[in-house]
């Protein structure tokens, strides 16, 4: 049967937390040994499923001719809405939908003849080989009577509405003070409209699910998911199983960026088909199906009214966002969140407008809401600085939020001023010409731009388990996933320090519902939550050992009070007399213990006393003082070269400085920050999925036509971190950095383009055509 990958590498050093160590899973990844979800090929009788999607966006399936497909060799089954086995609970039933854990799974196809979006699965073919499945799928004839679709919120037949809530929790309208009145009376008024194209996550690994019924009541699923527990819970409900009967495994995930955070139709189809054909089934989305199978970042228009004093102090922010959602859900990214909290502005009003269209439901995409929201607020702040002849950083300092303006709460920690100062120094911001459109290098226009980044700490919790063996090795477990973010590595580091062991003696296991339950890796929560649970579980090991030692007459610690004992590099010793103490192995040996196990719940954003690596630290004590507002902060700095004849924009220099609590591993953290910045540069300059306005079908759903950044698009990048101690955010003092790294990026690029050209491009992506059109606009 399939074996698990062995870890190795990484130089062990005392005090490994905070060291820029190479990934412990790196060896497996550079040798091709890392096993992803579509790579469990040795399952007995493994068969292959292929989805056939609708080529029209709206209509009804009128007939299905499966004859030729059925006659192909190796075909095991063909399913359509006429014969697909029924689900125990379906999201198409509103009562059931509420019971399902996964909000992405808000529609399930193949339950009726109705087609709601192009690419919607209308049939699935299962065959003994991939080639046979592909051949049969090509011969399947599904006739659909097309109707006129709604292609987006911009379509003539779109009906706009203000939802009661978006994403099921955020209000459709938010008011803080009288923003409209404050804007009307503000001495300085700016109104601007920003447009963001539809974009897709496009992780390099497409969505894939392999389902294996090991017994009628035991299902194992290898899935591309950011949350094995959430997938387990949703699958169990939809398939009518108890939760313990479903095991979900994700040892390696080839990128996620939000689209693998939810349970999409293919994830449910694979076990349904596997049951029907009585064999394990592998179902992998094709790249074009990735564009219609796992959500999207919705196209949107934002209008931001900004009122300020003549000195540049903000008085009012009025924000409206209009965007497209699916026929069955009120989904919009929460753009207003960052606009409301980023600066000390006394009033805010935010309104979301939606239109149902014939598209798949939008979903979370790296920093949902904060990423496009920051484009609006950070470009408008740049406009305000230019209008008032202020330096963009000076204007931001003038409006610096010393407390969270939305709640009045103090920040748990905030080092944004330091981020501005360090970033400006690394970038050489003082060389910036205060006037836009004045700097040239040859025939190219040169621009400097900057923007603020912020991302909230979303509360989450999860458990880890640590088993310390008397031989000095340990197994550490949490059912987390590693999207490439470094989860394997940072938790190995944390456990090594907390247990006083070299890293190669620690085996960290994740990505399996048989391991302790922890929430999904999303919303930048995993680093803080999982590392805290690992750290606290290690502390429980020490507490158990201490209890054994103090009643053992042969122990040097016999009779000691627990509060007088400290842990130092794998040794329990008296604080007052460190020479008096002993290692864990001695304690365990005398007590005939082969190992000691600890487990603990880690919380992200729940509040902790400052952690200390002692057995006596009062862990899990909730902060009793006034509540704190918790956010990571940072700043991006960008240099662009704009060709005024061709309209091309090249990013030529980049600096990001982030303050996000304790940085567990600067090497993997830096990679995340450059990765987020590059994702944002793509959105700024080239990424857009184009939906035909008449047919509501994507015209460029391939990686040749949907442009993500290549190596040649990216300059050298500089990343730095501000060392930050946050005693409230979690036991390890960690704030996530996966998403803050993209917030503000599009604005930093747009602000640099403005500085280069003196013209503002407010539509993303800033393609050469758009840049040229803006350059040629009359002043």
């Amino acid at each position, binding site marked *: 049967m399939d074996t698990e990958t062995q870890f190795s*590498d990484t130089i062990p050093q005392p005090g490994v937390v905070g060291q820029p160590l*190479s*990934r412990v*899973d*790196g*060896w*497996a*990844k*550079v*040798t*091709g*040994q*890392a*096993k*992803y979800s579509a*790579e469990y*090929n*040795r399952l007995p009788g493994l068969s*292959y499923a292929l989805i056939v999607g609708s080529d029209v966006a709206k209509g009804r399936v009128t007939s299905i001719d499966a004859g030729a497909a059925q006659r192909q060799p190796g075909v095991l089954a063909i399913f359509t809405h006429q014969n697909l086995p029924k689900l125990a609970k379906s999201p198409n039933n509103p009562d059931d939908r509420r019971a399902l854990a996964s909000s992405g799974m808000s529609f399930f196809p193949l339950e009726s003849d109705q087609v709601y979006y192009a690419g919607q699965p209308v049939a699935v073919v299962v065959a003994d080989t*991939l*080639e046979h499945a592909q051949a049969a799928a090509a011969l399947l004839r599904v006739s659909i009577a097309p109707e006129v679709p709604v292609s987006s919120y911009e379509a003539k037949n779109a009906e706009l509405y203000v939802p009661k809530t978006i994403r099921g929790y955020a209000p459709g309208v938010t008011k803080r003070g009288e923003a409209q009145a404050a804007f009307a009376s503000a001495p300085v008024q700016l109104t601007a409209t920003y447009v963001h194209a539809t974009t897709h*996550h*496009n*992780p*390099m*690994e*497409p969505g894939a699910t392999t389902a294996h019924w090991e017994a009628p009541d035991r299902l194992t699923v290898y899935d591309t998911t950011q949350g094995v527990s959430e997938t387990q819970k949703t699958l169990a409900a939809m398939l009518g199983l108890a939760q313990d009967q479903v095991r979900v495994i994700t040892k*390696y*995930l*080839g*990128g996620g*960026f939000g689209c693998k955070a939810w349970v999409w139709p293919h994830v449910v189809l694979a076990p349904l088909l596997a049951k029907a054909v009585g064999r394990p089934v592998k179902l*992998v989305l*094709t*790249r074009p199906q990735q564009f219609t199978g796992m959500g999207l970042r919705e196209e949107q228009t934002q209008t931001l009214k900004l009122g300020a004093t003549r000195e540049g102090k903000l008085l009012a922010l009025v924000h409206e966002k209009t965007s497209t959602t699916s026929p069955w859900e009120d989904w919009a990214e929460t753009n207003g969140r960052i606009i409301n909290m980023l600066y000390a502005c006394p009033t805010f009003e935010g309104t979301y407008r939606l239109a149902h269209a014939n598209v798949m439901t939008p979903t979370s995409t790296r920093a949902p809401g904060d990423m496009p929201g920051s484009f609006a607020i950070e470009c408008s702040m740049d406009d305000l600085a230019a209008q008032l002849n202020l330096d963009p950083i000076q204007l931001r300092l003038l409006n610096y939020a010393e407390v969270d303006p939305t709640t009045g709460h103090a920040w748990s920690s905030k080092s944004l001023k330091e981020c501005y100062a360090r970033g400006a120094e690394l970038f050489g911001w003082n060389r910036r010409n205060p006037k836009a459109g004045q700097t040239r290098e040859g025939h190219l226009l040169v621009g400097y731009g900057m923007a603020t980044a912020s991302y909230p700490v979303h509360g989450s919790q999860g458990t880890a388990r640590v088993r310390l063996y008397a031989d000095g090795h340990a197994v550490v477990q949490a059912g987390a996933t590693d*999207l*490439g*973010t*470094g989860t394997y590595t940072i938790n190995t580091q944390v456990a090594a320090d907390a247990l006083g062991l070299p890293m190669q003696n620690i085996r960290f296991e994740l990505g399996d519902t048989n391991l302790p339950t922890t929430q999904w890796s999303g919303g930048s929560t995993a680093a803080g939550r999982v590392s805290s649970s690992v750290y606290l579980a290690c502390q429980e090991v020490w507490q158990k050992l201490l209890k054994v030692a103090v009643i053992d007459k042969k122990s040097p610690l016999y009779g000691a009070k627990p509060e007088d004992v400290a842990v130092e590099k794998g040794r329990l010793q008296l604080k007052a007399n460190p020479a008096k103490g002993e290692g864990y192995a001695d304690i365990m040996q005398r007590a005939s213990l082969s190992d000691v196990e600890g487990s603990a719940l880690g919380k992200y954003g729940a509040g902790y006393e400052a952690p200390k690596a002692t057995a006596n630290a009062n862990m899990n004590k909730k902060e009793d003082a006034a509540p704190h507002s918790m956010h990571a902060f940072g700043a991006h700095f960008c240099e662009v070269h704009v060709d005024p004849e061709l309209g091309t924009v090249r990013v030529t220099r980049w600096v990001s400085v982030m303050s996000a609590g304790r940085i567990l591993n600067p*090497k*993997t953290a830096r*990679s995340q920050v*450059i*990765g*987020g*910045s*590059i*994702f944002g540069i793509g959105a700024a300059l080239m990424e857009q999925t184009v939906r035909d306005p008449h047919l509501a079908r994507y015209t460029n759903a*391939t*990686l*040749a036509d949907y442009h*993500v*950044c*290549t*190596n*040649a*698009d*990216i300059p*050298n*990048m500089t990343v730095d971190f501000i060392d930050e101690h946050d005693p409230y955010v979690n036991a390890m003092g960690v704030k996530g950095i996966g998403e803050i790294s993209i917030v503000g990026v599009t604005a930093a690029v747009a602000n640099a383009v403005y500085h280069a050209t003196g013209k503002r491009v407010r539509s993303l992506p800033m393609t050469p055509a758009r840049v040229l059109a803006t350059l040629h606009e009359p002043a």
Partner: protein
Amino acid sequence: MQSDSLPAANTPQPADDSRRSFMKQAGGILGFALAVPLAGPAEALAARTQVAAGPGSVTLRLNGQPTTLTLEPRTTLLDALREHLDLTGTKKGCDHGQCGACTVHVDGRRTLACLTLAVAAQGKEITTIEGLATGSELHPMQAAFLKHDGFQCGYCTPGQIMSAVACVKEGHASTDDQCREWMSGNLCRCGAYPNILAAVREVASQSAKG
């Protein structure tokens, strides 16, 4: 702007089975077919052509070992590796030659396995990521990717490394800009490009010295 990014006339080209090289081949075949007199060469061609359908025996030289398996003629080298031989180090990102995740070496040149039929790769030396290391000792490029964190999720990594090894060998990693250009056929959505560049340039400078 990047004159060193363009291939010099005498440098070997990557056998990337791109549309360009396909068109060259197609053009060649078309030109051949239209050449007069038609009868002679066409008949000779037909005499040598076999109709291949259904599974047949295929022998591939894989990572130095001859490997025989039963494949249909339509099976790509990528699916043969991943689905038929369980050599899953070579990745499928797009199946259309657009992302580079399936890059392998065929006779030492970087080749997209998703655009190569397995039957057409017979008789050639195929190297995949699994064949790059010597025992437990990593190839210098693998070690450099590890050192410089030239990846995050790791899914594009085998293709990046196979491209990088060939890129250095082709002599296309002698400057940063040239290296960026010649590594741009391999997409990385996690955005590890600056780290990939650092890894490839380090190996290139070591091989230049060595």
